[in-house]
């Protein structure tokens, strides 16, 4: 379980938020909302450890994530604004290399299954630069299926997705929560996933 104690974020001269407290336990998800520039992405980057908090602590199962290091990162899946997909590589290669970067080998079969689930059948071997923005996003989201992570931190996961993909992703997050997973995501839309709480920045 992830718990936040008195978290503050300062960017340059501006204090984005201060004294933030919340906890996300198994099967729960948190919807981070706020205006553009309210600090949603900064909050997520703090949570995953890409930025150091100005004040406060982030704890995973009661221990500070700074001291846990890789033991925390192993349970974590962060999908940010950027695609993190290589345009020159095919969808399959991207997915497999991303898994290897996490230290797991991904068999062809499970990688293909993940891509098919996201409607990329027949496009697995195509360099990603020939895919549309939404399809690139789907390649990235296929990581949700292939990486066994307890905590999903997703920044605007619904950007560029069509209606069908939005439903699919919502269902996927629902399954993840039912399995005892946790999710924190930012989105401007209302989310059709039950059991969530809202955090207004």
């Amino acid at each position, binding site marked *: 379980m992830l718990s936040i104690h008195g978290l503050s974020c300062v960017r340059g001269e501006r204090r984005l938020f201060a004294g933030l407290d919340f906890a996300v336990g198994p099967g729960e998800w948190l919807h981070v909302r706020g205006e553009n520039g309210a600090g949603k992405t900064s909050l997520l980057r703090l949570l995953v450890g*890409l930025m150091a908090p100005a004040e406060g602590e982030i704890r995973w199962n009661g221990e500070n994530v700074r001291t846990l290091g890789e033991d925390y990162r192993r349970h974590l899946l962060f999908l940010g604004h*950027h695609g*993190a997909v290589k345009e*020159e*590589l095919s969808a399959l290669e991207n997915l497999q290399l991303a898994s*290897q970067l*996490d230290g797991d080998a991904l068999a062809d079969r499970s990688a293909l299954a993940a891509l098919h689930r996201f409607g990329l059948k027949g496009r697995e071997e195509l360099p990603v630069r020939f895919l549309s923005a939404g399809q690139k996003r789907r390649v990235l989201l296929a990581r949700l299926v292939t990486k066994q992570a307890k905590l999903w931190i997703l920044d605007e996961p619904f950007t560029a997705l069509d209606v069908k993909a939005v439903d699919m992703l919502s269902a996927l997050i629902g399954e993840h929560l039912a399995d005892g997973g946790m999710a924190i995501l930012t989105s401007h839309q209302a989310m059709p996933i039950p059991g969530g709480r809202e955090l207004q920045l």
Partner: protein
Amino acid sequence: MNAVLAVIRRDLLLAMRRKSEVLTALFFFVIVTSLFPLGIGPEPALLKKIAPGVLWVAALLATMLGLQRMFAADHADGTLEQMVLSPTPLGLLVGGKIAAHWMLSGLPLVLLAPVLGLQFDLDVGALGVLMLALLLGTPLLSLIGAIGAALTLGLRGGGVLLSLLVLPLYVPALIFGAGAVEAHIAGLGAGGHLSLLAALLALAAFFAPWATTAALRIALE
């Protein structure tokens, strides 16, 4: 360890898909070193004297060419963030990227150098020393260059700053690398220079990934 190999494999695969970047640096090396004998004319004694310096300076500049792109693409498309968040320590992954950079920009120079050295009338022994010096020296260039590339990541006009930052640090490699070949030609033996080059390489292999990692973390904040 798998993750490090994956980084190396990915960078090599990417280089295969966009060959021009690697080939540009190689052509630069070949052309610059071939222009000198043409410009100076057939004077074997003079050519032999300037050969180590010319080959080393050309190798230095050829490695500089691709340096700025070392982390730029990964930074732009978010791969760098994923590398930071990987359970494998970032220092190891950065080591993998440096190794891949050397395989693409250093190793080809080592293999080409004896052929180009022939134009300068170097004998077999001197060519062997040249190769050995480049084999020890080019990884050093990649290691030092990685620190500069990480420090200038995301800066506008970072290319000029990168050269200003990195070239002075390349001077020891240049002195001992070219010195090894000169010493061999003068009959003094290249052992001392090569040992110093190896010592510098060991030092850089230990510190450079660590310094690069620190610089990358700052760039991502």
